[in-house]
């Protein structure tokens, strides 16, 4: 099980990387941590003439506070996020999702940007980014553009990134106030891609009413999904009046492309997804109430 031959490029700046993409076109593939890409290469499910390695691009790494948000360089490893006290304090949803990604050896290589750009609908980071309305900084030979999460994921393993574009950073808004956060997912085994899951953030007003709620769903569509109907139903509701199971039901009610595979039918995934939303709501709302 050996990959097909390819040429290898190791740029040291993001601009250089983008230049290579422009030059090589769709025969090139970016490799960041490689934890999803290399297995596909080894199985020869994917073949590229050129790999452009982001591993030596220093300006794509790091966690920083920018205007009340947290900006994370795309090549920042998941392990770095996991260890970051900053992320834990400012973007708890991201921090709590991180240990659920694969195993620690995977997180040592896997990157924030790699996970988002790979856009597996069952992955944790895309659902978190979507729930939190993160914004994606995209670099191309023509310059830099910013895309909201809602417009970034456009299909199965497919994003708004063009062939000559590179995801440079992702900025997560910081929720303040009486907030609670929870990520709940169900996988066959620890570290496997989830059958279904939910990333949920909630903020309560002093009156114990829901001021805002964001629910990202994973494993329940061809892209990460947002449980808009459930979010809308929750906003303004008294936290004690919420029927958690109803939140779960509502969250999966509008899904129309739930996948079906070896590990479960669409109906089964929907059931598990609803349960994960219910559990995430209970945990997050309880945390917010205490906050």
């Amino acid at each position, binding site marked *: 099980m050996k*990959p097909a031959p390819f040429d290898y490029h190791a740029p040291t700046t993001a601009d250089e990387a983008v230049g290579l993409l422009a030059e090589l076109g769709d025969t090139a593939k970016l490799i960041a941590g490689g934890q999803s890409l290399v297995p596909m290469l080894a199985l020869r499910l994917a073949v590229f003439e050129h790999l452009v390695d982001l591993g030596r691009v220093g300006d794509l790494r790091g966690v920083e506070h920018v205007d009340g948000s947290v900006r994370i360089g795309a090549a920042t490893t998941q392990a770095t996020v996991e260890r970051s006290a900053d992320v834990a304090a400012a973007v708890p949803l991201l921090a709590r999702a991180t240990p659920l990604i694969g195993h*620690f050896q995977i997180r040592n290589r896997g990157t924030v940007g790699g996970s988002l750009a790979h856009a597996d609908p069952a992955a944790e980071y895309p659902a978190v980014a979507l729930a939190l309305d993160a914004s994606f900084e995209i670099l191309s030979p023509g310059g830099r553009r910013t895309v909201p999460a809602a417009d970034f994921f456009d299909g199965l393993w497919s994003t708004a990134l063009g062939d000559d574009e590179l995801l440079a950073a992702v900025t997560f808004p910081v929720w303040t106030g009486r907030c609670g956060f929870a990520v709940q997912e169900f996988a066959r085994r620890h570290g496997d891609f989830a059958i279904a899951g939910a990333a949920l953030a909630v903020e309560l007003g002093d009156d114990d009413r829901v001021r805002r709620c964001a629910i990202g769903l994973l494993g329940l569509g061809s892209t990460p999904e947002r449980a808009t109907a459930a979010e809308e139903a929750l906003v303004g509701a008294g936290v004690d009046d919420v029927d958690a199971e109803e939140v779960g039901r509502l969250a999966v009610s509008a899904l129309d492309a739930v996948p079906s595979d070896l590990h479960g039918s669409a109906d089964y995934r929907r059931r598990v997804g609803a349960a994960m939303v219910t559990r995430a709501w209970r945990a997050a709302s309880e945390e917010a109430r205490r906050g």
Partner: protein
Amino acid sequence: MGDIEIELQVNGEASRAAVPPRLTLADYLRERCGLTGTHLGCEHGVCGACSVLLDGEAVRACLVFAVQANGREVTTIEGLGGPDGDLSSVQAAFRDHHGLQCGFCTPGFVVSVTAFLRDNPDPTDQQIREGLSGNLCRCTGYQGIFAAVRAAAGESTTAVAVGGSGTDPGS
């Protein structure tokens, strides 16, 4: 594009070669460095048998290309013990707790556990299990491995057994 010149540190020694870009770090270590303790159990990043330390962090050597390790430090199973063949504390704990049987997955476990315990010196049982869950073993049912890690973390565990002549007359 042909082969690429790389130079890295492997178990503290400089290692230089010209390699094709597609050569995995695991194959580089096994075939170019003769370090065959790094085993290939799946070659798609699941089993963990090929785990090595890359700049000190446990990674799957089948998911890293040798060219990506250029300029970095790699530690393999062969580099963990003492120079005279002394076992590291993790290796000794695996021996003491029947943490290996066929030994094929063992290097990956020992490498991973070495990094895990360095970063989590006082793990809970659940943390140990999660820390081990990225490595597959088919012989031990993880019983001896878990006991070894528990012991190496500095807290002894009590083997559960009833009856039998499993006594230790010699000590």
